[in-house]
């Protein structure tokens, strides 16, 4: 027997952590809202039942506004699961209970899961589970996704809830609301719960109206507006009643989170501390990974020498595969270390504070701190941030975020920066990295302003964000984060980078293996030399940049092949700086372009993205080149 179980809850209440516990998966989890933007499914077997869990994007209400919230609402409404787990944050349960009441109104088989019970206990909160069960009429399970507490009981409750035919009791609204609901119920047709549909119609949910093929008269709409307020008020009053009867708290004045926030979001200290921590993160990355980078380099050099270059096959293996791929894989220790550090910052709950700190500035650029948080995902991979933009309720802001995402320095560009910094600025690698990342954020923000002014006119919606609690980072979560982000790099290395490296080798090998100056690669680069002369790029750099359009890491493998090895690469500080700036923004990779196309339903924004990024990168690199000539 297969039981479908939907997992819903507010953002950042630990749905995905719980999902991982229930099905033994290793989905990416983070200590900030909006990580899951699409549904994730997994199956486990328990007591002769197959439990099929569906982890849904976080939402505060079934009145969905953003694309990811719609995913949750549509799933519950159009393909109702056998059992719904509504995850409620034990420490701050109010919003979770609101969603729970809505899910109950949908007539579904609901189980209330009070998660983070360990944290609640630590804060001196006591929960009277029986009182909640009596009030809400649904089974309640207390869990901790971190410690695993309550998981076996939750599985038992899911099976028991599936077998029961009873549905939770509905809460009653004041007389005028009940009257309106009953009148609407008679008019509505459709397969789903009529009471739920009527309540949503009163609340002004246009989706439900469209689904029912019904429309409202002008007078009805204004009448319903007042009733909608009454519905929300009744729900919150009811929630306060439930909590008064079931929750006991020690009245803490200054919690750890409040203490930390007072300083980390301080109006004068907040941003300097953020910049300092970012600098330390980069410096730590280089210092810790340096010896490992040297070790990997030694291994690949040895392998290349072992294979030799006599004959076409040996040459392809030695130069195309080992030198080309090896030059990229050399930076794996640095990339994994950086992800470890970023994972640490994320798991502590610090990242959303950056969104809060930057919101004022972002608002001026017609974006919000919420968009910044999504853009921060792009430091891993631009594809993630383009897709995560679905969580933005404002369409204009979503498109802007999609279009400016490629300016965020993704991990694919890391090896290129590492290579350039090692060659052109061997003693100031962390400083160069810091500058590149700062420039990346500045370029993204300014582009957002430009896109809003030129393409998508409109105002931003103010940021309302629930800051998660700080917590001691969990080593396994950080390792999971590091692996989830880093594995994409390894997969790319084994597929697209390997393939492109062999193509680059063919371009350097033919028609004359003895002389690279007459190779197809040289001809390709020289044919465009006139365009890049003002930037000071030679044909090797141009060829590497062309192949780097497929995936940015290929720039490194191309350099390794065009120069014989990375050790032979020569870049003076001026060209190094210019190249860094150019690589920062020039054309999004093929995968990102494909996602931009699917997320914007057309080629218009794809073309804009390519042309805009090329023009901006070229112009900026040119300015840097002139300034560097004057000062360096």
């Amino acid at each position: 027997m297969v039981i479908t179980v939907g997992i819903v809850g507010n953002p950042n209440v630990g749905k995905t952590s719980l999902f991982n516990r229930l099905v033994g998966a290793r989905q990416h989890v983070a200590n900030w809202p909006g990580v899951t933007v699409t549904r994730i499914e997994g199956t486990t077997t328990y007591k002769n039942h197959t439990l099929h869990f569906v982890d849904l994007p976080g939402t505060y209400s079934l009145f969905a506004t953003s694309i990811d919230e719609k995913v949750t609402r549509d799933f519950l409404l159009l393909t109702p699961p056998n059992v719904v787990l509504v995850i409620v944050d034990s420490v701050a349960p109010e919003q979770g209970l609101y969603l729970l009441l809505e899910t109950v109104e949908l007539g579904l088989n609901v189980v209330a899961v009070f998660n983070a019970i360990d944290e609640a206990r630590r804060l001196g909160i006591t929960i009277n589970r029986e009182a909640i069960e009596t009030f809400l009429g649904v089974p309640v399970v207390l869990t901790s996704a971190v410690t695993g507490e309550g998981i076996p009981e939750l599985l038992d409750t899911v099976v028991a809830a599936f077998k029961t035919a009873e549905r939770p009791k509905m809460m009653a609204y004041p007389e005028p609301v009940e009257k309106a609901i009953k009148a609407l119920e008679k008019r509505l047709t459709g397969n789903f719960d009529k009471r739920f549909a009527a309540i949503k119609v009163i609340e002004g949910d246009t989706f439900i109206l469209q689904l029912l093929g019904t429309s409202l008269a002008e007078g009805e709409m204004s009448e319903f507006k007042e009733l909608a307020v009454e519905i929300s008020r009744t729900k919150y009053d009811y929630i306060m009643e439930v909590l008064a009867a079931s929750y006991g708290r020690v009245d803490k004045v200054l919690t750890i989170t409040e203490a930390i926030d007072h300083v980390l979001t301080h109006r004068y200290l907040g941003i300097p501390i953020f910049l300092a921590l970012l600098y330390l993160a980069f410096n730590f990355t280089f210092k810790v990974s340096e010896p490992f980078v040297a070790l990997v380099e030694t291994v690949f050099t040895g392998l290349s020498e072992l294979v030799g270059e006599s004959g076409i096959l040996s040459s392809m293996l030695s130069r195309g595969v080992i030198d080309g791929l090896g030059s990229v894989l050399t930076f794996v220790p640095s990339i994994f270390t950086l992800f470890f550090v970023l994972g640490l910052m994320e798991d502590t709950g610090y990242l959303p504070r950056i969104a809060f700190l930057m919101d004022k500035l972002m608002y001026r650029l017609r974006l919000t701190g919420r968009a910044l948080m999504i853009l921060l995902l792009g430091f891993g991979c631009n594809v993630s941030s383009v897709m995560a933009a679905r969580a933005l309720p404002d369409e204009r802001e979503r498109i802007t975020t999609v279009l400016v995402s490629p300016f965020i320095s993704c991990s694919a560009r890391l090896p290129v920066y590492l290579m350039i910094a090692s060659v052109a600025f061997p003693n100031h690698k962390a400083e160069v990295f810091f500058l590149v990342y700062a420039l990346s954020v500045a370029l993204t923000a300014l582009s957002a302003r430009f896109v809003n002014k030129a393409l998508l006119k409109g105002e931003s919606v103010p940021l309302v964000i629930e800051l998660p609690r700080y917590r001691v980072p969990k080593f396994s979560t950080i390792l999971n984060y590091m692996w989830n982000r880093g594995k994409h790099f390894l997969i790319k290395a084994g597929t697209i980078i390997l393939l492109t490296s062999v193509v680059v080798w063919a371009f350097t090998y033919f028609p004359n293996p003895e002389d690279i100056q007459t190779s197809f690669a040289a001809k390709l680069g020289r044919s465009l030399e006139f365009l890049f002369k003002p930037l000071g790029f030679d044909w090797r750099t141009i060829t590497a940049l062309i192949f780097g359009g497929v995936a940015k890491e290929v720039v490194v493998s191309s350099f390794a092949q065009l120069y014989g090895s990375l050790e032979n690469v020569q870049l003076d500080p001026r060209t190094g700086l210019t190249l860094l700036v150019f690589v920062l923004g020039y054309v999004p990779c093929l995968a990102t372009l494909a996602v931009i196309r699917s997320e914007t339903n057309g080629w218009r924004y794809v073309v804009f993205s390519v042309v805009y990024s090329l023009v901006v990168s070229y112009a900026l690199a040119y300015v840097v080149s002139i300034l560097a000539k004057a000062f360096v």
Partner: protein
Amino acid sequence: MRFLQVMLLLLTLFSSVVGLSYILEGEFVFGLIVLLFSAVFAFGLLERGGASFSFRVAHLYVGSILLLLASGYRLLSFAASLLNLLTGEEPSWLGLSDSLLILVSLPALFGFWTVRRALRSDTESRFVRRDGRMANSEEGDFPTNG
């Protein structure tokens, strides 16, 4: 309260000296970062108003964490550089400023631990009231579990 002020003052002074020492050694950026962390303690001393006690606790707590992070970063970087010996290169040895930073981290660790114990205690409300003052004494010593 006196304990808190003394701790904030001492840590401001000590960490400023460490920051300046790094700058004199030529590590300009890291020196500035340590000076910024010392400013976290200094801003705590400047807190005024009803909730100043709570906010000073916050500054001591976060400043101590940041200072511990800085010294942890130096120690870990040094530990990782020992691997350089495998490739025949010199590790980056700890300097005088590093030793000073580690020394200053000891009172920071003490400050962090004291605040953490007080904040995490179930009986916290007995110590810190909503107005930010201690509840069981009139602006006396810093609260502890004992």
